[in-house]
C-alpha cells in the first residue's frame, strides 16, 4: 500500500509538470489549429532565463521567476511574428507551419548547445527560497519533496487563473470566439492579430513557469524540448484544444506511466504511452475531452 501511495504521489508530481507544458500547447492549438513544436524550446529557454537570472544576475528568486516568464512570453511572440505570421498571411498550407516550428525548435536548441554548452546545470539550493530548502515532507513511509508540492500548487493556481480568465473575462471570451471561428470574430470587431499575440504570450509565459519549475526539480539542460513530447501526447490524450483536457490528459498519462514502470517494467513504459496514444487516436481522436467536430480540410 505504501508503495502504491508513493507511486501515486510520484505520478501526480510528474503530471503537474506535464500539465503546465500541455496547457501551453493546447492553448495555441485551439487558436491556430496547428501544433507548435517550438513550445518545447521555449520551455527550455525559460529554465535558462531563470537559472542565469538567479546565478549570474544575482536577483532574488521571485524576480528571476518573473524574468523567465516575461522572457519566454516575449520569445513566443517573436517566434510567432517572425516565423508564423508570414505563413499565415500567405495562407500557407498547414504543413509549412509544422516544418517551420520544427526549424525554430532545432535552431533554438542548438544555439543554446553551441553557445552555453550541453552540460546540465542545477539550481544552487542556497539560492532558492527558504521553504524549498528543507528536507522532504514525510508521512510515515510516504515522502513528498517540497518542490513537488510547490509544482502541484503552482500548476493548479496557474490553470485555475487561466480558466477564469478564459471563461469570465472579455479578453478570454475574445480568445474563445477567435478559436471558434477566426473570420467571424474578426467581422464582429475582434482583432485576430491581437488575440493571436495574446495567446502566444500566455502560452509562452506558462512555458516559462514550466521551464523554471522543471529546471528546479531536475536540471537545466538544452535537450529539454524532448521531454515536452510527453506533454504533447498528454494534450492529444486529453483532447487538443481543451484546457481541462490538457490537465486531465497530463495527470492520467503521468499516472499510467508511473504505475507501469513501478509495477510492470520501466523499459516498456514509453511503449505503453505510445500504444495508448495510438489507441486513443483510433478510438476517439478528439481525445477525452476534445471537441467532437473535426474539420478535415
Amino acid at each position, binding site marked *: 500500500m505504501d508503495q502504491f501511495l508513493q507511486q501515486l504521489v510520484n505520478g501526480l508530481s510528474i503530471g503537474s509538470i506535464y500539465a503546465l507544458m500541455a496547457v501551453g500547447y493546447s492553448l495555441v*492549438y485551439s487558436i491556430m489549429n*496547428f*501544433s507548435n513544436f517550438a513550445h518545447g524550446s521555449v520551455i527550455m529557454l525559460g529554465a535558462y532565463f531563470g537559472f542565469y537570472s538567479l546565478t549570474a544576475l544575482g536577483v532574488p528568486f521571485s524576480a528571476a521567476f518573473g524574468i523567465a516568464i516575461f522572457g519566454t512570453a516575449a520569445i513566443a511572440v517573436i517566434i510567432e511574428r*517572425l*516565423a508564423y505570421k*508570414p*505563413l499565415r498571411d500567405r495562407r*500557407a*498550407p*498547414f*504543413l*509549412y507551419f*509544422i*516544418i*517551420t516550428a*520544427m*526549424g*525554430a*525548435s*532545432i*535552431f*533554438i*536548441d*542548438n*544555439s543554446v*548547445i*553551441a553557445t552555453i554548452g550541453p552540460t546540465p546545470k542545477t539550481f544552487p539550493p542556497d539560492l532558492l527560497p527558504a521553504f524549498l530548502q528543507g528536507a522532504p515532507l514525510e508521512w510515515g513511509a510516504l515522502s513528498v519533496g517540497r518542490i513537488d508540492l510547490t509544482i502541484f500548487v503552482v500548476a493548479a493556481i496557474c490553470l485555475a487563473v487561466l480558466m477564469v480568465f478564459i471563461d469570465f473575462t472579455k479578453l478570454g471570451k475574445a480568445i474563445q470566439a477567435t478559436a471558434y471561428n477566426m473570420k467571424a470574430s474578426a467581422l464582429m470587431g475582434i482583432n485576430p492579430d491581437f488575440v493571436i499575440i495574446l495567446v502566444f504570450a500566455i502560452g509562452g509565459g506558462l512555458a516559462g513557469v514550466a521551464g523554471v519549475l522543471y529546471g528546479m526539480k531536475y536540471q537545466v539542460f538544452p535537450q529539454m524540448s524532448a521531454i515536452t*513530447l510527453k506533454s*504533447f*501526447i498528454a494534450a*492529444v490524450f486529453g483532447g*487538443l484544444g481543451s484546457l481541462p483536457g490538457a490537465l486531465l490528459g497530463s495527470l492520467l498519462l503521468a499516472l499510467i506511466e508511473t504505475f507501469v514502470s513501478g509495477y510492470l517494467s520501466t*523499459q*516498456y513504459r*514509453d*511503449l505503453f*504511452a*505510445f*500504444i495508448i*496514444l*495510438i489507441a486513443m*487516436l*483510433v478510438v476517439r*481522436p478528439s481525445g477525452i475531452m476534445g471537441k467532437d467536430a*473535426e474539420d*478535415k*480540410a
Partner: protein
Amino acid sequence: MEYIQGIAVLIGINLIAVLGLSILTGFTGLFSFGHGGFMAIGAYVAAIVSSRLGLPGPLAFPAAILAGALAAGVTSVFIGKLTLNLKGDYFCIATMGFGEAIRVILNNIDYVGGARGWANLPQLTTWWVVLVLDVVCVVLVWNLINSRHGRNMVAVREEELAAQMAGVNVFRSKMTALVVSAALAGVAGALLGNYIQFLRPTMFNMAKSTDLTIMVIFGGLGSISGSIAGTILLVSLPEVFRNFAQWRLVIYGLAVIVIMVGRPQGLMGGVELTPSGIRKLLAARRARARLEAELKAAEQGGN
C-alpha cells in the same frame, strides 16, 4: 579515395530514403517524424536475412533488401490504416510515437543485439549497388509522380476537400505515398546496415527522421531533383565545414525557417532538372516578359 567513396555511398543511401520521404511530404503534404523507424525495420530485417538465414551468396543481399523493404512497407500499412484518416497533426504525432516505439522495441530484442548493437554484419553494400539502386529509385519515383497517382497526391496536398469532391480517393493516395516512402526507407536502412557493418537502434532515432525531412525541405517540396540536390548538399557539407560542426544544426534550423517563410520551393525552386522542366521554365519566363511588354504598351497607349 576510400573516404570519398564512403561519403558517396552515404549520399546514395540517404538519397533513397529522402526520395521516398519526398513523395510523402513533398508531394502528398504529410509530415512524418518517424521514418527513422521504417529505416530501422528495413535495416534489421535485412540484417537477419543476410546473416542469419544462410542463403547462398549472390542471392542473400537482394533477398535481404527486398525483405527489408517489404517489412517496412507492411508495417506502414498498419500504421496508415490507423492514422491516415486523421488530421495532419495527429498523423505527425503518431509517426513520432511510432518511430520512438520501434526504437524501444528494438532495444529490447536480444536476438538482434538490443541496445548493445549488432556488429560484424557482412559488407555487402558497395558503391555500384548503391548507384544502381539510386538510378532505379529515381526512375521509379519519377514515374510515380508523373502518373495519375502522383497527380492525385499533389491534389491531396493542395486542397484535400476539393480533391475528394473531384473523385480522388484521398485515403488511397495517402496510403500509397506512405507505403512507397516506407519501403524506400526500408531499402535505405538495409543498405546502411550492410555498409557500416554495425546496427544500433539509436542510429534511427528522431534526429535521423528530422535529418531526412530537412534534406527534403532544402531541396524544395515537390521537386525530385531538389531532393537529390538537398541530399548531396546536406551529407557532404558537414565534411567540408568540420570546423563549424557545433553550428551546423543551428544553421539548419534557421535555414528551415527562412526557406519555409521565404522560398518554400527550396534550392531548385520547383523546377525539375530535366529537358522538359527547363523548357517549361524558359516558356514561363518568355510568357511573363511578353505580358509585361503588353502591359507597358497598354499604359503608353492609354496615355
